[in-house]
């Protein structure tokens, strides 16, 4: 099928070429079929040569002096483009013609060198068949050579450019409009020049330059084809600029013009594409580095904290330069509280990402030292001022106690946090606002306190979530609140996905978005179920959580102490013996059954028998403190089940 199309295309191209001949039917300044053959070999492979050979024979038979002459000419016309394609492939030619070297390869190897073959075979055949005398051989050779070469220079890039419409990203309507405009202008200018008695052909060049500069090969190659066709047609008719002068003069003018047009179009287009790609590569590299840096500076995961579920997202901007600077963090504090931060460093790119990393670590360090919001923000402010960091940082920092639900917050110029209560009602935390960190010389960071009831969701985010071009921030905030109400029942992960999906739209992310979502989970309604990292510092958090639960269940203090100690011993065993070098989790579950507490401490590790460390009192203490202790081992890990009757309803 392809072969048939190529053959037909070749034949029609030849008819067109003959129609453009200057004298009778054998001095043709532009021979399109050669260009068609080269393009066909480059696009579909050189194995298509039989199609070209047959078509070339069909073209040459009626205009040659006999069958052998037609065969010889057809052979020359097939071998030349075949060699052209071979040479181009050998030098690593890219048919996208998007590098200067590809453009140069087409000119020197594809056109000038390869067409020596067809010109030599063709002109010698003319001589041998008696069509021309020896004295006309040089001029016949020259006309043949330039005609074939022009065919390659003008037609091949055009056909290759057509393939690009399928391979490259499609043009926007605006680009299409520009392409139509440039071709219309070019046709008008070419025709005007063709009919004018004055030498106005050079006026075409800037238009071809426009096409190459703005739209590259996809517009430049068609433009060159149109310009060359019009000029050649006008020369064939002896119009305008070709009205006077000898055949040689006409030929020289035309070939010089066509060569200029062809070279300007695709060499210029290749240079522009090359430079654009270099700039794009640079931008892509910066974007990638900033994204990687940004991601590596964000928390790798969310900590396990009893009493809350957490989810977080970071979405880098799609645009090359807008990445970087947004962050969130969750800092588990020694007392079982949580420090939560969300912030945005003004500016984008590598600098913003780097500053973000420093500020994030500063927040962590200050939080561990003195976790109050006021002190953390003051610390970060002082650090930024002392270091002379030029950036402006908006930052909301919260100190949250999962056991009591108490929340202390201070907001330095950041969009307000959204609270969604268990019933789906939303409110923004708009108090305790202060200017962004690092802006003013002396800053005060007021705090506000809230209590989050169980089932409350807190959404912290950066401005990219609510700010969009053409939409006011208030509209963004309203949409966020509305979506949050509608999806208050969703799990946190799907809530995150939904908010991002709905608010960011489909047309790319204009600005980074960081999002941190926290939901409070009741620690006292029903059984207690907590998962903690099996490390020593988790023990205290486990006790705080269990203590809170036992008190809410009205269990007396003597029972409370014993249960806490038994559970602490079981957990300490998990910490010390359940896992190897990589820590796992421990799961503590407590249920109230009639007048008893059932306690389960589970690990997912291969239990090592308790080493004789710590006196080995762990299990013994558990047995003393509780009514019953069972140690169940299964392939997944170990579970310690403990029961104890308790006094409820009064202190011990």
């Amino acid at each position, binding site marked *: 099928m392809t072969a048939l199309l190529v053959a037909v295309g070749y034949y029609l191209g030849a008819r067109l070429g003959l129609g453009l001949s200057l004298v009778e039917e054998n001095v043709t300044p532009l021979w399109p079929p050669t260009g068609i053959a080269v393009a066909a070999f480059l696009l579909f492979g050189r194995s298509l040569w039989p199609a070209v050979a047959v078509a070339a024979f069909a073209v040459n038979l009626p205009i040659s002096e006999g069958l052998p002459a037609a065969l010889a000419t057809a052979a020359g016309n097939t071998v030349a483009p075949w060699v052209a394609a071979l040479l181009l492939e050998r030098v690593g030619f890219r048919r996208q013609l998007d590098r200067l070297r590809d453009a140069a390869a087409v000119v020197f190897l594809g056109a000038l060198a390869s067409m020596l073959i067809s010109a030599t075979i063709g002109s010698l055949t003319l001589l041998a068949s008696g069509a021309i005398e020896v004295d006309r051989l040089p001029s016949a050779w020259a006309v043949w050579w330039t005609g074939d070469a022009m065919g390659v220079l003008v037609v091949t890039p055009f056909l290759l450019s057509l393939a690009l419409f399928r391979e490259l990203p499609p043009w926007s309507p605006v680009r299409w409009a520009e392409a139509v405009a440039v071709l219309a202008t070019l046709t008008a200018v070419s025709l005007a020049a063709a009919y004018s008695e004055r030498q106005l052909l050079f006026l075409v060049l800037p238009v071809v330059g426009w096409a190459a500069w703005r739209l590259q090969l996809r517009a430049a190659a068609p433009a060159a084809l149109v310009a060359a066709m019009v000029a050649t047609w006008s020369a064939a008719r002896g119009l305008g600029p070709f009205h006077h002068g000898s055949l040689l003069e006409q030929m020289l003018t035309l070939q010089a013009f066509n060569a200029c047009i062809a070279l300007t179009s695709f060499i210029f287009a290749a240079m522009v594409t090359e430079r654009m790609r270099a700039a794009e590569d640079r931008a892509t590299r910066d974007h990638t580095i900033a994204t990687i840096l940004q991601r590596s500076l964000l928390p790798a995961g969310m900590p396990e904290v009893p009493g809350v579920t957490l989810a977080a997202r970071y979405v880098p901007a799609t645009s090359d330069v807008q990445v970087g600077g947004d962050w969130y963090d969750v800092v588990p504090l*020694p*007392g079982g509280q949580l420090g939560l931060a969300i912030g945005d460093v003004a500016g984008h790119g590598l600098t913003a990402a780097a500053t973000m990393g420093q500020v994030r670590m500063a927040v962590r360090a200050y939080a561990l030292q003195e976790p109050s919001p006021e002190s953390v923000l003051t610390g970060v402010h002082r650090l930024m001022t002392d270091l002379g960091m030029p950036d402006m940082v908006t930052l909301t920092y919260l100190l949250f106690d999962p056991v009591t639900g108490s929340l202390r917050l201070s907001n330095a110029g950041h969009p307000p946090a959204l609270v969604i209560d268990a019933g789906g009602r939303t409110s923004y935390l708009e108090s305790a606002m202060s200017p962004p960190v690092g802006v003013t010389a002396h800053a005060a960071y007021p705090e506000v306190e809230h209590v989050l009831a169980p089932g409350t969701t807190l959404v912290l985010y950066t401005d990219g979530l609510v700010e969009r071009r053409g939409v006011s921030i208030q509209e963004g905030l309203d949409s966020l609140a509305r979506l949050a109400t509608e999806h208050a029942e969703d799990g946190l992960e799907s809530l995150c996905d939904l908010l991002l999906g709905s608010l960011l739209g489909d047309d790319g992310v204009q600005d980074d978005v960081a999002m941190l979502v926290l939901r409070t989970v009741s620690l006292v309604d029903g059984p207690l179920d907590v998962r903690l990292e099996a490390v*020593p*510092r988790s*023990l*205290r958090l486990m*006790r705080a959580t269990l203590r809170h639960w036992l008190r809410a269940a009205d269990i007396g*203090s003597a029972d409370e*102490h*014993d249960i*806490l*100690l038994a559970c*602490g*011993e079981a957990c*300490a065993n998990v*910490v*010390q013996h359940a896992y190897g070098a990589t820590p796992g989790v421990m799961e503590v579950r407590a249920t109230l059954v009639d007048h008893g507490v059932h306690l389960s401490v589970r690990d997912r590790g291969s239990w090592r028998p308790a080493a004789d*460390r*710590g*006196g080995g*009192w*762990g299990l*013994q*203490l558990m047995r*003393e*403190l509780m009514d019953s202790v069972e140690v169940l081992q299964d392939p997944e890990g170990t579970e310690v089940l403990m029961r104890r009757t308790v006094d409820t309803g009064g202190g011990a």
Partner: protein
Amino acid sequence: MTDLATVDAEHAPGECAVRVAGEIDLSNARDVLDLVTRLVPEETRRVVVDLSGVDYLDSAAISMLFRLAETLTRRRQELRLVVPDASPVRAVVRLTQLDRVVPVTSSL
């Protein structure tokens, strides 16, 4: 001082009283032991470790106290612990029989 427990000492001629408050567990027992050992001068005869302010003491903390007793015995120092009768840690001291090795009183 660790963030879970505080340790401070009061020196009198021939006697040193170390007050520990807070919670002692696997995560900070070694730190507390180091602090207490450092705060007790070698030449002091009598050492009192006051656990009145301690709300939680696990078996890691108990073995820390055993080790402290050993160290002080080697240094020819006398150790006494103060654990009030109503203290939440009274039970664990009794269950581990720490009070058989180290004298425990309910007040200073």
